[in-house]
């Protein structure tokens, strides 16, 4: 899948962008900036997905990941991070011991990974040379049969169709499990994020905690009296 021409140019643009945005995510002082940089990194990676002819996944990434998860992040940042701007220059990195050690190990890790990838790819290339060339002709032949797009410059690929077929044919059970997982996540997050008042209202607190909080909070004391009946 050797890219060439403009594809390679876009590859380099988007990959540099993704890496740069990721770096800035990690190193930004403001949390909102971190979130926005993460969004740009995710979008760049979506573009890379398109270059890899996984349009569906790119769309899912933008819609779900960026549009759902990152928005959620932003909401939570708003909720919990309000005071950091007021505080000003709070240290954003950990103590130097932790940071140093992590940087060293990450460096080692990246070195190892890069080497592994290179060597692995060489081996992979050697192994799949014949298959690649064989499949290339098939693909070009198959590509010719694809219908034309509305603009006429490219064809409507069958990628998404294949993904859907595979997902619903072979991955239907994991699909259902994933949906159950999401359900559980919904319920769990609702439960986790309840306030004490909400929990007391549905009688889901331990009495001694209720007692302790009632001393600080008159509203809870009110609630306590209503519960006691």
């Amino acid at each position: 899948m050797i890219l060439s021409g403009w594809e390679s140019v876009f590859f380099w643009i988007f990959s540099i962008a993704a890496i740069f945005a990721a770096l800035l995510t990690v190193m930004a002082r403001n949390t909102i900036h971190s979130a926005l940089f993460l969004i740009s990194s995710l979008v760049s990676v979506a573009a890379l997905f398109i270059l890899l002819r996984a349009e569906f996944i790119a769309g899912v990434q933008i819609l779900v990941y960026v549009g759902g998860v990152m928005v959620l992040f932003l909401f939570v940042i708003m909720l919990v991070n309000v005071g950091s701007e007021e505080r000003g220059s709070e240290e954003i990195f950990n103590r130097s011991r932790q940071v140093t050690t992590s940087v060293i190990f990450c460096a080692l890790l990246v070195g190892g990974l890069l080497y592994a990838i290179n060597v692995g790819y060489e081996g992979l290339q050697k192994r799949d040379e014949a298959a690649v060339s064989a499949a290339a002709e098939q693909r070009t032949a198959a590509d010719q049969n694809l219908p034309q797009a509305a603009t006429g410059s490219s064809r409507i690929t069958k990628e998404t169709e294949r993904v859907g077929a595979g997902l619903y044919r072979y991955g239907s059970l994991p699909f259902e499990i994933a949906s159950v997982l999401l359900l559980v996540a919904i319920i769990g997050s609702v439960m986790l994020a309840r306030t004490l008042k909400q929990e007391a209202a549905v009688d889901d607190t331990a009495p001694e905690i209720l007692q302790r909080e009632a001393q600080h909070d008159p509203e809870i004391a009110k609630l306590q009296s209503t519960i006691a009946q």
Partner: protein
Amino acid sequence: MQFLLFNFLNPAFGMLLQAGGNGRFAIAWEKAQHPDLSKFLIIGALLFIIGVAGVLTRRNIIVIFMSIELILNAANLNFIAMSRYLQDTGNVNAVAGQIFAVFVIVVAAAEAAIGLGIVIALYRNKETIWVDEIDILKW
């Protein structure tokens, strides 16, 4: 523009490259012009490492979460790149990579939801988002 680029700049650049370093640069430039699977994997690895570094070094809990998202994203990239490569080699199971990527996104979403719920609950109790202040589970 394209004309300029391809017919003038490229050969010039190529000659430059050829001249230097016994042609090593030329080879590298040639290689860079045609990114293949390994480049994608390298990008994925780099994104991964950055995410790991973010998890390990930042104090803000939300940033840590976002670094985790970076990690998952890098994994996704790996999956899709390999899926494309397998397609190229004619493997009929090539689409499994994209399917897996879908599930990774689903899990990432669920995990983000739960995790942020925990962050909110934690913030309500401890009034802090700095991770090094949340160290009760120690000696």
